């Protein structure tokens, strides 16, 4: 199968596999060793302050290996840029139609490739998308806790319908690959 290269204006398809990156998060200093509850970490679903929760488009009908390889390099690098740095642990993936199908909260997933010129090659991401509330303004203005509940809603949807994907081994020097590009994918 040909490597998937979504065009910037291509809508996110209902069958597409979407992934939220998971990172190894620090535990509370006084709570080390406490009994864990099986759940995803809320911190992995907090937005960066603009109300747009980033997602990776992992494949057309399911996760595609060349796409995962391309994204894993970028996810590892993104974790290292954090202060303190965070280790990338893979994704939790979900089909788009399951993610946006809840009547409890109206959301959509919008394609938003990161290809600005000022970004380095490893910061660019042609598979980037983000969650948007529909309609965005009214929901946020009507509920001061909207962004908290959005994160909690996404966490719940991924817990209910998602699948954990381990991180593929990082291959910095694959054949035909330079500056973080995976063979066959031009970012």
């Amino acid at each position, binding site marked *: 199968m040909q490597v998937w290269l979504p065009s910037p204006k291509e809508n996110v398809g209902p069958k597409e596999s979407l992934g939220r990156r998971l990172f190894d*998060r620090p535990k*509370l200093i*006084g*709570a080390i060793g406490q009994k864990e509850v099986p759940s995803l970490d*809320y911190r992995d679903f*907090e937005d960066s302050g603009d109300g747009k929760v980033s997602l990776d488009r992992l494949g057309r009908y399911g996760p595609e290996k060349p796409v995962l390889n391309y994204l894993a390099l970028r996810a590892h690098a993104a974790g290292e840029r954090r202060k303190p740095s965070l280790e990338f642990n893979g994704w939790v993936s979900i089909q788009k139609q399951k993610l946006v199908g809840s009547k409890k909260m109206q959301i959509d997933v919008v394609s938003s490739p990161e290809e600005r010129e000022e970004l380095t090659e490893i910061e660019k991401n042609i598979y980037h998308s983000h969650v948007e509330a529909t309609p965005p303004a009214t929901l946020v203005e009507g509920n001061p806790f909207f962004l908290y509940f959005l994160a909690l809603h996404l966490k719940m949807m991924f817990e209910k319908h998602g699948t954990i994907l381990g991180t593929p081994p990082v291959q910095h020097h694959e054949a035909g690959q330079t500056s973080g590009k995976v063979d066959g994918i031009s970012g």
Partner: protein
Amino acid sequence: MQTITSQATTAVIRFIETGHRYLSPIPNPPTVEQEKLAHVEGEKSAKTTRETYNNLFYEFKTLSFDAEWLNGIQQRIIASVPTEGYPVKGNTAWLDQQVARAALEFFKSTSTVLPGEPYIYSSGAGDLVAEFSALRGKMTCLISSKFVLLYAIAGDEVIEKAFLRGQVNADKLRSEILAVRNLLSETPNASLAAES
């Protein structure tokens, strides 16, 4: 006879309340090893002192009618508060003192109506996250110095609640949480349901 019974009851309650203070093991602040785990660049001054730790512990000390896990949660929260310096923004190994106080108050007033012992951590924004697991679903509480948010899923039902600090009294908070707990439990506890 009634007077004697009443006096005896009072004495027992007094013993439980005061005796507990001396019978409870004095909690330990974080060990050097634990401090090392949370140590990151720019946060060299953040540490917990035994004095502040013990003051907080006795202020929120557990009584016999609280949930049995409350003491452990209190210790974890208090031991996560740096008394010198402040947590670096985004470093979720530490808790802000105001958030810790709000969390201690929350657990103190609601421990017996919560679904069980929570798993706690700090959110990226510095709030306390408490995760609960129950027979029919899950509940997550976000506790900040200004509000408590509750998000639960019981079967197919999703419950969202927001409580502003100072606008909801402890009884109201307890009854609201109890209603959610009953949805999360397969067989709602009749005696506790009567409390609401």
